[in-house]
Each structure stands twice: as structure tokens, then as C-alpha cells.
């Protein structure tokens, strides 16, 4: 059987993942591009006895060297030389989409155009002359409707046919007009003298990129023996063409499209569309924010309410299974290890799967419907003032439910600096797991101020997140400067495709299980060990004496550091377990006080562990200190960097300490002690 390699490329929102799913049947291998946080999807498709290996390239408007996405896409096409590149073009935004097509032709790629959203273009009243478009571009053009799988067979046929012809170098079709064409061919002639260079890259493309002062290409040609000859020519060219040749060439590309192609290919006027009418409401000065908040609230309820029973069932299933298995094991240490270590750990990991799955269904629906881009539009002004990006708002709100899916939701922020900054401050949004801790401590020591104390934690989290975002922007060189300004396409509203949405959510969920799951499982096993050993000392008959365990010894060691905050060793141990999952703080106090979770509040009050001030400080500490390990797993997975993961732990620990110390200090100054 023959094999060919096919790459998919297109602007954002053209329906690329739908075409990918249609071609591969939804079975994809998802990973990262080597050394990058950008996702790489690969799949296969067999058509008429030929196996196509399909790579999904990042969605992009252009092929410059300025963003990671664009660089990945173009390097793949240049270096891996796929047999065919399918360029997915949105028929309803033809003019803008053809810009990328022109660049692919410059690259000498063997292009097949999939003219997607054919139905949308028709409903807008556009008439597109496909034959003429194909003739002008010099490549096959296949109309498709990915949502209904229309045109897929024709597309596959065209890909096989193109692979057989092995057409390359059709960049001849593109003429920039005088004096550009002359200059480009003169530079290409110089570059051709370097045989090694000419065998590796399409020379005309190199010539264009040299003129555009493209960083990557300039580096490449600077190593060439023809460098000095080239520099002379470039000086000459700049006198004729001006300094900013890149912008000038972008204009030329667009004039090829709008003067030569569009008039001969596209007919039809544009009436007021549904999108324009919906935008009047969704982007309205007055209604925009209320609508956004209502939709967010719906997303939030959907994610956490719908997933909660599933999480509970999974948790129960695993603790039940653990008990079932351990009951058959006579060796108590092994039984405990299997029940609490392995099954407890698996249960913890899997209980995060439902909220992630449902969140990504909800987010995908918002994104595919076209609303998510509008949300960024509506929130942009506020978020920019806070030093964050318009798109940071949704992840921050999701953080009030759970920081794990919130961190994963930062993927909708396109610039890496803005995304990482949003991730770093996200754990300060008080997640639902912290609420039981506030209730426990609040009702134990704050009396009638318990509700106010709890509420103040949410405010404190928001204030700290804003302050930290500002501080990091000002202090850390990586985040220097303003958030990237808003330049964003708002796609037409559309009905999301169910299958694509489910596949997307499933991929996200299973990726989390694979990457973050391992870390979570290891930490659960470690903490099982620390709280159960030395075995003889901890397990005295039926009694579980956690005060004899390694973790209690650790708590004793830590106590001096917590003394300025007024926390004793028990508080230190509770915080340690809070690292597994913040709500574990409650259970740990109950275990150590020898009562059930329901009685913990009273027991805590009568044990006199906290004063109102130190109790309040403990609540604040629980809010701020290191994100739980599941969140850390997500942070590591999303930043692909130990540096940022460790940084989050360190800055949050330091911040928690400072905040708690400030509360205790001011509290005692004000005479509350």
C-alpha cells in the first residue's frame, strides 16, 4: 500500500478540525510540536488503497516568522515537504482567506484548496465561480461543507490526484507587478548560485523572504557564500522599493486578490446578516456585559452541576473497589496501600475528568458558535486596565469552580506571554474546594462574622490576582509591556457540530489524565506513605494515630515557621494535605481531632487551636498558598515548563505567608487577639 503525507492548513475558524475529523474518522494522535506548547494532531485516512498521513497545522492568517504557530506551519511545509497541502478556505470570507493561499503558492507547496462553508457563502448570496478560481490559482478547488461531510470524497480524490502529479513550483502564477517581479527574480538568480541552499528551499520564496527581512530566512542566507553579493543587491532594492518591503508586498498580495481574482470569481451583494443582528445585542454597550455574565453563569452551572454526580460516582466506585480488593488481602500494609494509595489516587485523578470534560463541551459550544470571541470583545476594556488580556476573563471566572479546567481554558489566549500570566494568577481565584475550609474555620472562630469572612476570601483572591498580574508585568522581563492589543476576527455565528465538540472535549480530558494524572497519582501515594508510616506507631490496634506519623513529625518541624502566624503543628499538617486537594484540610482536622467531619467545627472551637485573628489568617493562607497538585499538574501541562510550575508554588507560598502575617499583625495591633 502506498503512503502519502498530507498537511491541513487554514485561517482560524474555517472548520479545519471538522475536516480533520471527517478525514481521519476522529481518531487522532494528540501531542505537542517538539519543544513547543502548541498542540500537534495527527491521524490517518485510507482512500482507494492509499494511506494518507494527515497532520493538522496550527490555524494561521499568514506564514511569517513572527509567531510560533506560523513558524511551525511553515517549517513543516518547507522541511518535511508533505506531498499535498490542503488549504482550507472559508468561502464566506474568500478575499481575506486567499491571502494565506497566495503565501502557500509562494512556498511552492502542492496545494489543494478546500472551499469550505460553501453553504454559508451561498446563504449570504455569494456566487463563486469555482472553475475560474481554480484556473487563476493554478490548483484544484473543491467546494465543501465540513459540518455535513459534503465534498469529502471529491477532496480526497483531488488530494490523490495532486500527489500523483507532484506539482510544485506553481508560484509562477503570482505576479506582483513592476518593479517587484524583476527584483525578486534577480535575487533568486543570486541565491541559485548556492547549490545547497537551492536544493533545500524554493529560491523564489527565499528571495521574497529576504526582501521582507524575514528573521529566520535572513539567518539562513547569512550563512551562505553568496551573502555579500546579496547584501549589495538588497541595498539597491531598498532604494527602489522603499524600507518596509514586507508591508508593501502584503499590499501587493491583496491587490492580486482584490483586483485580479475576486472580480472574476465572486458575485453577490451582502445583505444584513443574522450575525450583524446578533452582534447588535451581544456587543452592545449596555447589554453586552449582562449577556456575557448570564452565559458564563450557564457555563459554570453546566460544568460543575452536571459533572458533580459523575465525579461522586467515580470517587465512590474507586473507594468501593479499593475496599473490595483490600478486604481480600490479609497483609494490612499492602491492603492499605492498594485501597488508599492506588485506588484512592486513581479516584482522585478520575474525579477531575467529568468537570474537565463538561467544561470543554461548554467552551467548545461557546467557541464554535462564535460567541467566545465576542466575550473577549466585551471584556477587553476592563481586562486591559487590569494588565490582563480580554480573553483572560473566562479562565478567571472558571477558577471560581475549579482551577484545573480554568488553567486549561487559557488555551483560548493566543499570545504565550498573556497566557502564562493568566495561568500564574489563576489559582488565586477561590475554587469551590476551598469553600468547606472557610466554612469550617469561619463557623468555629468567627461567630456571626463567618459569612462575611468567607465572602471576603473571594474578594481577597480577586484583589491579589489583579495586584500580582500588575506586579509580574512590571517586574518580570518576560511579561514586560502591555497585554497584546486586541486584533481579532469575529467569526460568523454558527451552530456547533456535536461530534466535533465531543471529540474535542474527550481529547482534552484524556490529555489531562495522561499528563497531570501521573503527577497526582504519585503525590497521593507519597502522602499515603507519609501519613501511614512508621506503620507500627500509627496503627495501634484499631486506633489510627496520625500524631505518630512522619507527616506529624514534618508538621512539628514546620511549626516554628508557622508560629509567627499562630498556627500549630495540626494546622501545618492540615495545610500539607490541603496540597492534595484543598478540601482535604477539613478531613485532616477531623481525623486529628478524632471526630467526624460534621463535628469538626465544634471540636476545633473547643480545642482552641485558632483565635478569630489566626483563624482568619489561616483561611487567607488556605486561599493563597500553593495550588493543589491537580492544578499544578495542569499548570505544568499547559506551560510545558517546570520553571513556571515551581515559580507558581514559590510565589504563592511567599504571598500566603505575607498575607497571613499581615492579618495577624494588624489584627493584634487592633486588639483582636
Amino acid at each position, binding site marked *: 500500500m502506498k503512503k502519502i503525507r498530507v498537511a491541513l492548513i487554514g485561517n482560524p475558524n474555517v472548520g479545519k478540525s471538522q475536516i480533520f475529523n471527517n478525514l481521519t474518522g476522529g481518531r487522532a494522535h494528540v501531542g505537542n510540536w517538539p519543544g513547543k506548547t502548541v498542540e500537534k494532531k495527527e491521524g490517518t485516512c485510507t482512500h482507494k488503497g492509499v494511506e494518507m498521513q494527515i497532520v493538522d497545522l496550527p490555524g494561521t*492568517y*499568514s506564514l*511569517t516568522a*513572527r509567531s510560533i504557530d506560523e513558524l511551525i506551519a511553515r517549517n513543516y511545509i518547507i522541511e518535511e515537504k508533505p506531498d499535498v497541502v490542503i488549504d482550507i478556505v472559508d468561502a*464566506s*470570507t*474568500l*478575499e*481575506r482567506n486567499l*491571502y494565506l493561499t497566495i503565501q502557500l503558492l509562494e512556498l511552492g507547496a502542492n496545494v489543494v484548496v478546500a472551499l469550505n462553508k460553501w453553504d454559508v457563502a451561498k446563504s449570504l448570496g455569494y456566487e463563486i465561480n469555482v472553475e475560474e478560481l481554480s484556473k487563476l490559482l493554478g490548483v484544484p478547488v473543491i467546494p465543501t461543507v465540513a459540518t455535513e461531510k459534503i465534498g469529502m470524497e471529491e477532496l480526497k480524490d483531488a488530494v490523490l490526484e495532486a500527489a500523483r502529479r507532484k506539482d510544485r513550483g506553481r508560484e509562477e502564477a503570482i505576479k506582483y507587478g513592476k518593479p517587484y517581479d524583476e527584483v525578486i527574480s534577480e535575487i533568486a538568480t543570486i541565491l541559485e548560485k548556492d547549490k545547497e541552499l537551492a536544493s533545500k528551499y524554493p529560491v523564489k520564496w527565499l528571495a521574497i523572504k529576504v526582501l521582507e527581512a524575514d528573521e529566520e530566512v535572513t539567518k539562513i542566507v547569512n550563512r551562505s557564500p553568496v551573502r555579500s553579493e546579496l547584501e549589495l543587491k538588497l541595498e539597491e532594492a531598498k532604494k527602489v522599493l522603499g524600507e*518596509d518591503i*514586507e*508591508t508593501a508586498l*502584503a*499590499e501587493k498580495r*491583496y*491587490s492580486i486578490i*482584490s483586483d485580479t481574482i475576486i472580480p472574476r470569481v465572486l458575485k453577490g451583494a*451582502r445583505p444584513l446578516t443574522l*450575525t*450583524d443582528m446578533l*452582534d*447588535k445585542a451581544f*456587543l*452592545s*454597550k449596555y447589554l453586552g456585559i449582562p449577556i456575557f455574565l448570564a452565559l458564563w453563569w450557564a457555563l459554570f452551572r453546566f460544568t460543575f452541576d452536571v459533572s458533580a454526580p459523575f465525579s461522586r460516582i467515580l470517587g465512590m466506585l474507586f473507594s468501593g473497589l479499593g475496599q473490595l480488593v483490600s478486604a481480600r488481602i490479609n497483609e494490612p500494609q499492602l491492603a492499605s496501600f492498594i485501597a488508599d494509595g492506588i485506588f484512592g489516587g486513581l479516584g482522585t485523578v478520575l474525579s477531575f475528568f467529568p468537570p474537565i470534560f463538561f467544561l470543554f463541551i461548554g467552551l467548545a459550544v461557546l467557541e464554535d458558535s462564535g460567541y467566545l*470571541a465576542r466575550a*473577549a*470583545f466585551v471584556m*477587553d*476594556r476592563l481586562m*486591559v486596565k487590569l494588565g490582563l488580556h480580554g480573553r483572560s476573563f473566562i479562565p478567571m471566572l472558571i477558577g471560581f469552580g475549579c482551577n484545573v479546567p480554568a488553567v486549561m481554558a487559557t488555551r483560548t489566549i493566543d499570545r504565550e506571554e498573556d497566557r502564562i500570566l493568566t495561568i500564574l494568577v489563576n489559582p488565586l481565584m477561590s475554587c469551590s474546594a476551598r469553600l468547606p475550609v472557610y466554612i469550617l474555620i469561619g463557623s468555629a472562630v468567627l461567630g456571626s462574622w463567618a459569612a462575611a469572612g468567607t465572602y471576603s476570601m473571594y474578594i481577597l483572591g480577586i484583589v491579589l490576582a489583579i495586584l500580582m498580574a500588575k506586579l509580574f508585568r512590571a517586574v518580570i522581563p518576560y511579561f514586560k509591556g502591555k497585554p497584546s*492589543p*486586541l*486584533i*481579532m*476576527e*469575529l*467569526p*460568523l455565528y454558527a451552530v456547533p457540530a456535536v461530534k466535533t465538540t465531543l471529540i474535542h472535549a474527550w481529547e482534552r480530558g484524556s490529555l489531562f489524565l495522561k499528563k497531570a494524572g501521573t503527577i497526582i497519582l504519585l503525590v497521593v501515594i507519597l502522602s499515603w506513605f507519609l501519613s501511614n508510616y512508621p506503620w507500627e506507631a500509627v496503627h495501634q490496634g484499631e486506633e489510627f494515630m496520625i500524631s505518630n506519623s512522619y507527616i506529624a513529625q514534618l508538621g512539628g518541624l514546620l511549626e516554628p515557621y508557622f508560629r509567627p502566624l499562630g498556627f500549630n503543628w495540626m494546622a501545618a499538617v492540615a495545610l500539607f494535605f490541603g496540597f492534595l486537594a484543598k478540601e482535604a484540610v477539613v478531613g485532616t482536622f477531623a481525623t486529628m481531632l478524632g471526630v467526624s467531619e460534621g463535628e469538626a467545627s465544634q471540636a476545633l472551637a473547643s480545642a482552641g487551636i485558632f483565635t478569630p485573628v489566626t483563624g482568619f489568617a489561616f483561611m487567607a493562607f488556605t486561599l493563597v498558598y500553593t495550588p493543589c497538585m491537580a492544578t499544578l499538574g495542569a499548570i505544568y501541562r499547559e506551560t510545558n515548563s517546570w520553571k513556571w510550575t515551581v515559580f507558581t508554588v514559590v510565589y504563592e507560598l511567599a504571598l500566603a505567608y505575607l498575607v497571613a502575617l499581615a492579618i495577624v499583625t494588624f489584627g493584634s495591633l487592633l486588639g483582636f487577639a
Partner: protein
Amino acid sequence: MVTEIPLSFLPENHEAVIIEVRGGYGLTRRLAELGFTSGARVKVLQSTPPGPMLVMVRGARIALGRGIAMKIIVKPVEGV
């Protein structure tokens, strides 16, 4: 008399032709890729100062921050 104004001053539902983009290299190029090149026609779909604005260019709806819209110099098309 027709004068040249920043795009951000163009009222809703008005059309204009882009004269030039006065930004740094990076911004100018990014806007050029999206179709904001001199000679291109733009229409303001939504404008809520001081918030961002929504414009139609080359058949696509693009949201622009107010600061960016200040850097795009346009010549309004009369009688629209």
C-alpha cells in the same frame, strides 16, 4: 470637504478607504495580513468608545482595540 481621520473617529455604519497605517513594523504587518492595507475599504459595524470597535474589512469582521484604531488613518467615503 473630505479630510483624513483616524478610523476610531469614524461613526457606526460609515465607510472609509484606508490611507495608511501608522504603527510600528510589527503592528503594521499584522494589520496588513488581516487586510488593512492602504486602499482597502472598511466599514464600522460597531463602535462603543472608549471600548474596542468592530469593523468589516475584505469581507471579514475584525475587532480592534481603540488604540489600534487610532493608528489607522482613513478617508471617509461620502454619501453613505
